[in-house]
């Protein structure tokens, strides 16, 4: 599970005055009462647009996120690790399928989503624009990036859109083994030889800054954010997610006698908040806009897969095939 649905800029704030006030009231009452919204229900234009964007980007993150770890399948240390990593990568691709389907119920076809991904019009989680240089990098991804994603996704699974929540629930269940596998693999390295410890420490140093970027810049509190929170599209602020992640995983890193590459990282016992060096948000912006170490490769690989498979899909297509928006 790779999150980051919250880390992207919001859709332009549409004027809600254009919406039918009676329907809007009913819609908001339904959400306030804890009910889910289903594809056939009336919904404000902004709700639909924002959800398509979020779910689509989440799906892209899963399918692109399979690439840095997939790099290590052929060279995993031993059969057990290879089996586990293969199963994990398969899960991530499956999660992309579930999420694309949830987005499709809102009326955007999978063709359009693929096109927007490959042409760079639609983003994915920025962390996958960095390379997995060693096996230890792949174990850090499995452990910490998945951990970060779980924080994000557990929050979102309590949201208001039925198909997205159902996809996330399924994803969270499948995900449980990734985190355990990742932790197991990191413990193995961290309790191993000097060289193994060094390897995992260096990987942690490389992945810490993108991990701090992972939850996105601090939210600007705007009317827009308030509306999305009221509609249960956005379930927690970026900073809340980041704090929760630090709370759960920094102690686990420290107990392995690994260090976090941030001398200012500490928990303020009075405020019960973690204090840290503010990540470099200029770098975040630069990379998300295309200038990261792996952006070009990630999109080129996706494009190759789509283009080389196209004739097969075309040959299989029956003349009576017809596209309808899937049901739920």
């Amino acid at each position, binding site marked *: 599970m790779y999150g980051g649905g919250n880390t992207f800029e919001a859709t332009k704030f549409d004027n809600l005055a254009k919406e039918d006030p009676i329907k809007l009231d009913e819609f908001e009452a339904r959400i306030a009462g804890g*009910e*889910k919204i289903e594809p*056939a*229900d009336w919904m404000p234009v902004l709700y639909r647009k924002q959800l398509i964007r979020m779910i689509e980007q989440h799906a892209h993150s899963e399918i692109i996120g399979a*690439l840095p770890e*997939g*790099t290590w399948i*052929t060279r995993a240390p031993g059969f*057990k690790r290879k089996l*586990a990593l293969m*199963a994990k990568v*398969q899960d991530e691709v*499956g999660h992309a*399928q*579930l999420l694309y*389907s949830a987005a*499709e119920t809102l009326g955007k*076809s*999978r*063709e*359009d989503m*693929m*096109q927007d991904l*490959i042409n*760079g*019009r639609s983003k994915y989680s920025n962390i996958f624009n960095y390379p*997995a*240089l060693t096996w230890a990098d792949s174990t850090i991804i499995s452990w910490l990036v998945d951990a970060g994603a779980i924080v994000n996704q557990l929050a979102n699974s309590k949201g208001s859109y*039925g198909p997205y929540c*159902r*996809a996330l629930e399924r994803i969270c*269940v499948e995900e*449980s*083994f990734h985190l*355990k*596998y990742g932790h*197991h693999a990191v*413990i*193995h390295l*961290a*309790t191993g030889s000097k060289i193994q410890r060094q390897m995992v420490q260096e990987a942690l140093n490389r992945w810490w800054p993108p991990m701090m970027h992972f939850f996105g810049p601090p939210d600007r509190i705007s009317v827009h954010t308030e509306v999305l929170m009221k509609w249960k599209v956005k379930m927690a602020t970026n900073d809340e997610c980041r704090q929760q992640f630090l709370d759960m995983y920094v102690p686990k890193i420290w107990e392995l*006698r690994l260090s976090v590459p941030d001398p200012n990282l500490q928990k303020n016992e009075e405020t019960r908040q973690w204090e840290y060096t503010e990540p470099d948000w200029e770098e975040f912006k630069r990379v998300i806009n295309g200038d990261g170490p792996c952006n*070009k*490769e990630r999109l*080129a*690989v996706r*494009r190759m897969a*789509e283009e080389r498979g*196209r004739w097969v*899909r075309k040959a*299989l*297509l*029956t003349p009576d*095939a*017809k*596209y*309808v928006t*899937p*049901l*739920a």
Partner: protein
Amino acid sequence: MALDSLDPRIKRCNLQEQRTKDFNSQPLDQLPTYEVFIQLKETKAFEHAGIVHAATPDMAFLFAKEQFSRRYTCTGMWVVPSDRVWVTAFSDLEENIYDQIDEMPAQEAGPEEDYEVFHLIQRGKQHQHVGRVTANSHLQALQKAKVRFNAGKPILNVWLIKINDLQTTNLEDHVIWSTLHEKTHRDVISYRAGDKLKQFKEKQQPDG
């Protein structure tokens, strides 16, 4: 310029850097969709699981098996093209959709056919199979379903599928799920590392 990659499999593809934004998808390039229903145990009803994109029912079945039943026991699976599912409107919370049959437009009678009936009883949950009726139209199937299956909680939404449109598993197909219990590498329990961690921590604090 060819892209360099850490992945030897990608490096061998000799990919060129993409300089244009000219990728175009054709309609149906990602194939049409099929709705998938899963039965987790023999004693349980089939339940809607989600969709797959596929060219044929056989292909949909293979993808659905990977997508929805690679982790847990499964005793049956149905797939149907999305456009072959007949769907009622959604009723409001306290209302029963079966109470609105009289307001639905009349349908021409066709040949008698069997229909599988699915109910949604809670928003946010998925449709469950409740049984089968024989009828000469969707509306008649709905009327018969009202008599046979309408009991208890209000039904929010009904799906009807002609059984000829459903691709189903039979008993011999169950062998495809028989290796599931051997695949423990997907279980959390296979990754216990508590002892190792404890030993490590003890070694770090020899006097503690």
